[in-house]
């Protein structure tokens, strides 16, 4: 598969090496000539010392036959422009952007970037997992971020205590599927009765998080993240 990687920072460098090792055809565009040379010394002539934001450089790199363009520079604005140019001018089937400001995720998705990777959000999710507050925790993103796997811990005062799944009013976009009780994961069945200390794992659309919060955590709904 032909992949163009934009940005030869740490992410772009290791990504290129891994993809090469997996046998893919790669070109890496890095605009700083010194950095480009440094990487080329190691991986060979697949590095172009070019600014991937410029249309003509993407064309030179063969963007019109690329299966994937991955923009992984440290600047959100550069990654957005690379992906938009790739998508709209070179008909690249799949564009991937690294996003540093999590607030930009929605805009990028809206503007047609296919896959959005947010290291900030991932680390945020990991940090939240270690904080013993009774909020929703982000465990993973699915379907390009439209769906999230969330964990809700049932604490004192939760409106779900003593209730069965059928008694809990959740919208269609939200499905509870596993409860972790005494460190044992069990599938949620119609006869399951929620109790204090349960951790409920649910898959939810981003816009249903407030409902999940209201039903399982209770009190003032503060969306996690």
């Amino acid at each position: 598969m032909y992949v163009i990687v934009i940005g030869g920072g740490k992410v772009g460098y290791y990504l290129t090496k891994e993809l090469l090792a997996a046998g893919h055809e790669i070109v890496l565009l890095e605009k700083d000539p010194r950095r480009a040379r440094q990487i080329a010394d190691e991986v060979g002539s697949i590095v172009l010392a070019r600014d991937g934001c410029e249309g003509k450089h993407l064309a030179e790199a063969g963007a019109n036959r690329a299966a994937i363009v991955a923009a992984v520079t440290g600047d959100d604005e550069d990654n957005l422009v690379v992906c938009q140019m790739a998508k709209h001018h070179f008909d690249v089937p799949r564009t991937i952007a690294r996003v540093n400001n999590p607030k930009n995720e929605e805009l990028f998705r809206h503007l047609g970037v296919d896959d959005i990777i947010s290291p900030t959000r991932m680390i945020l999710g990991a940090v939240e997992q270690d904080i013993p507050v009774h909020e929703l925790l982000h465990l993973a993103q699915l379907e390009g971020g439209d769906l999230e796997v969330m964990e809700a811990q049932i604490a004192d005062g939760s409106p779900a205590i003593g209730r069965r799944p059928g008694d809990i009013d959740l919208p269609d976009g939200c499905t509870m599927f596993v409860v972790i009780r005494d460190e044992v994961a069990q599938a949620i069945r119609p006869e399951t009765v929620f109790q204090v200390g349960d951790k409920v794992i649910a898959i939810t659309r981003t816009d249903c998080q407030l409902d999940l919060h209201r039903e399982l955590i209770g009190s003032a709904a503060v969306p996690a993240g």
Partner: protein
Amino acid sequence: MRVFIVGCGRVGAGIAERLARAGHDVTVIDINTEAFARLEPDFPGAAVRGDGTDEDVLRRAGAQGADLFYSLTEGDNRNILAAQLAAESLDVGRVVAKINDPVRSEAYAALGIATICRTAMLVDALGEYAGLPIEPGVRGVSEATGIHPGGEHHAAPAAQEV
């Protein structure tokens, strides 16, 4: 008219002064407070320090619902990001991005953002001075020629006098 300007360089400061003196409600934002030295001491608008490519910052500075938004920093891509935030997330009426790379400028006009390209304007003007035949070049702001991929409500607007 409420006008929001990202980037207080020579161009940003110049248009901010002119619009504010003409009685418009002008806010100019720049990441560097020293840039505000380009404004006259009695500049009648607002000058805000902040990152104009950050949605929260733009919102706090009052960009939401502005009638006109100029993205005029020295970075083409920063201007593109700020302009698309304004159009997509901040419900701004008209958005113009300065894009000095002619290829990107044309590309984004086709993607639904009005653009102004200093390079194309200067090349046209200098060619004309040298006696080259006048081409139907870029004289100022190029209105959007296409539809913004994020939403049809930002389709090419009818040309209006600024």
